[in-house]
């Protein structure tokens, strides 16, 4: 077990390194014509010209030095070392504000939305998935499966739009605009987040439902389930104590793999419901072509994903003893 943990922890280093390289290369591949467009759009506003933009983006040195500067191991143009390792993600191209402060002010919203979305999605998906598997091919199963595919098929942005449009038309209701921090007023805060979280949770719920059903079906065919049944155990005991434990292990892995997709869903939800989170930050920044904010936010997302994958793998190792004998 310890070997597994150590190996898994060591794996973070190349993964984070490669993630940062991919993000870095993606941003640095900006075609020259785009820089012209950027200067045209914002040059007058921020009083910068093409040379200044190139300087800020650090495009006038070879690419490996650019990477070294960005990470924080190679000195900047003025001789100081300041990069990701020192906690400096750069400044916004057009507004000059440090990227770190933008992220600091927006990550609580994204985090809360993500947690609520996850809780709601699993609260919906697990019971329905389990029920669907133990009553296979009955009407309940068909309804549940249709519901699961509908959750996947109905686009989150459409559902969110419907929820914004129709209460407004029918009851004159409009969602609250000002953000109430959770600590100050939990009820008010939840009132604001519950509907976006439900919309977010629905799309994840669909996939989770299907996966739970598939895994439970596989497990329920096993011989040890047959034995438990033959021993005369009640259905609830067979399902909960024997089948569920084994079926849920891959489901946890799937949830871990779904988190990056959920972030995409969050971007959409934050844009529809006008929540000031990292999703909206990165959308505005990408539309404005403010590439320092974009690369900083992508890096934060990337590192968080790596950590979540680590958590999922360690949980998997804890739950499934067969991992030690790989």
């Amino acid at each position: 077990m310890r070997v597994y943990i150590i190996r898994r922890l060591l794996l973070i280093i190349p993964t984070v390194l490669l993630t940062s390289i991919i993000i870095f290369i993606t941003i640095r591949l900006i075609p020259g014509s785009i820089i012209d467009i950027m200067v045209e759009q914002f040059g007058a506003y921020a009083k910068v010209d093409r040379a200044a933009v190139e300087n800020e983006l650090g495009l006038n040195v070879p690419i490996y030095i650019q990477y070294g500067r960005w990470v924080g191991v190679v000195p900047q143009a003025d001789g100081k070392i300041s990069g990701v390792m020192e906690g400096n993600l750069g400044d916004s191209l057009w507004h000059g504000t440090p990227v770190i402060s933008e992220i600091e002010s927006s990550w609580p919203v994204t985090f809360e939305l993500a947690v609520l979305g996850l809780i709601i999605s699993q609260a919906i998906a697990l019971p329905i998935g389990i029920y669907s598997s133990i009553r296979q091919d009955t009407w309940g199963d068909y309804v549940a499966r249709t519901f699961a595919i509908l959750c996947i098929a109905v686009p989150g942005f459409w559902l969110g739009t419907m929820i914004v449009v129709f209460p407004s038309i029918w009851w004159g209701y409009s969602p609250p605009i000002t953000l109430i921090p959770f600590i100050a007023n939990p009820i008010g805060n939840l009132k604001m987040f519950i509907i976006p979280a439900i919309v977010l949770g629905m799309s994840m719920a669909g996939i989770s439902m299907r996966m739970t059903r598939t895994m439970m079906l596989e497990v329920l065919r096993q011989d040890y389930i047959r034995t438990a049944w033959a021993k005369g155990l009640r259905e609830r005991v067979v399902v909960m104590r024997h089948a569920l434990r084994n079926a849920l292990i891959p489901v946890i892995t799937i949830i871990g793999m779904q988190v990056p997709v959920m972030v995409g869903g969050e971007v959409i939800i934050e844009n529809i419901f006008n929540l000031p989170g990292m999703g909206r930050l990165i959308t505005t920044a990408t539309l404005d072509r403010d590439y320092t904010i974009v690369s900083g936010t992508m890096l934060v997302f990337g590192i968080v994903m790596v950590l979540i994958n680590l958590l999922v793998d360690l949980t998997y190792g804890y739950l499934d003893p067969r991992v030690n004998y790989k």
Partner: protein
Amino acid sequence: MKDNSLKRKTERKRRSGMINLLARLLKEKPLGTVGLLITLLLLLAGVFANFIAPYGMNAVGAGPSLSAPSIHFWLGTDNLGRDLLSRIIYGARISVIVGLIGAAISVVLSTIIGILSAYIGGAFDLIMQRIVDAWMCIPPLILMMVLISMVGPGMWQVIIVMGLSFGITGSRIVRSSTISMKANMYLEASRALGCSNTRILTKHILPNIMSTIIILFSTLVPTMILTEASLSFLGFGIAPPAPSWGGMLTGSARNYMFMAPWLVIWPGVALSIVVYGVNVFGDALRDLLDPRLMGGVGRYGVKIKKGDTVKSKLAARSDG
């Protein structure tokens, strides 16, 4: 004479593989048949949009601006007087192209990366898998948004960016399938006979992982359609006036949606139905092609009625 009757018996049973599949679909999977019908409807609308749509794709001023659904305009008109139904039918064409071609590019890329990675193995495999790991850690929608902001919006840009992104993530599945294939003994025998690597790849490995590839393709088509809609909704996809279903929900529609909700209802309904249908059809196809789910030890759903004993039920089950 005996020869003749024998020949007739064997010939009667043989049906073409595709027809057999279709027959099983219709008989065993009613939901899958519905999915097939929806998929065919989508293809029809996409290919023959010119003949089916009552008005043009971008017929500004065909009717009064923002008029509710009526006899002349079944789903209403938008703020430029364009018929919504026609735009939705033309939108099917975009979904078909994006879905099919995007999924095809993605599957080809996944296959190349997956097979090479698994077959060559060793350090190459290790490095490739770390790169794929790192790629999967970046939220795909964000990565695609950024890539499109750099190459500009447009249908082919969207298709290529999506194909690239999903191709890399899908290579995992092809790789694991190839690895399990590689363990087969007859590959060693082939190599001992002197088969070149290319021959082994094309004649032995590829046909056997074909079912995995088909399943991957069938899951990717609805994903592509939804992702293109999401990207267009955020403004990073196919630019107006092209009638992308996702793009029809954003932009000017958001200004008028409180007055004219039909503008935002029907593209979403179309998306939901299409993605639902393709998903269900893909599911049914998967179930039919997957040997593991066929038969099995027995059904779990034992309904205990009064007077039944578990013993008798088990006895009945083990026969079935």
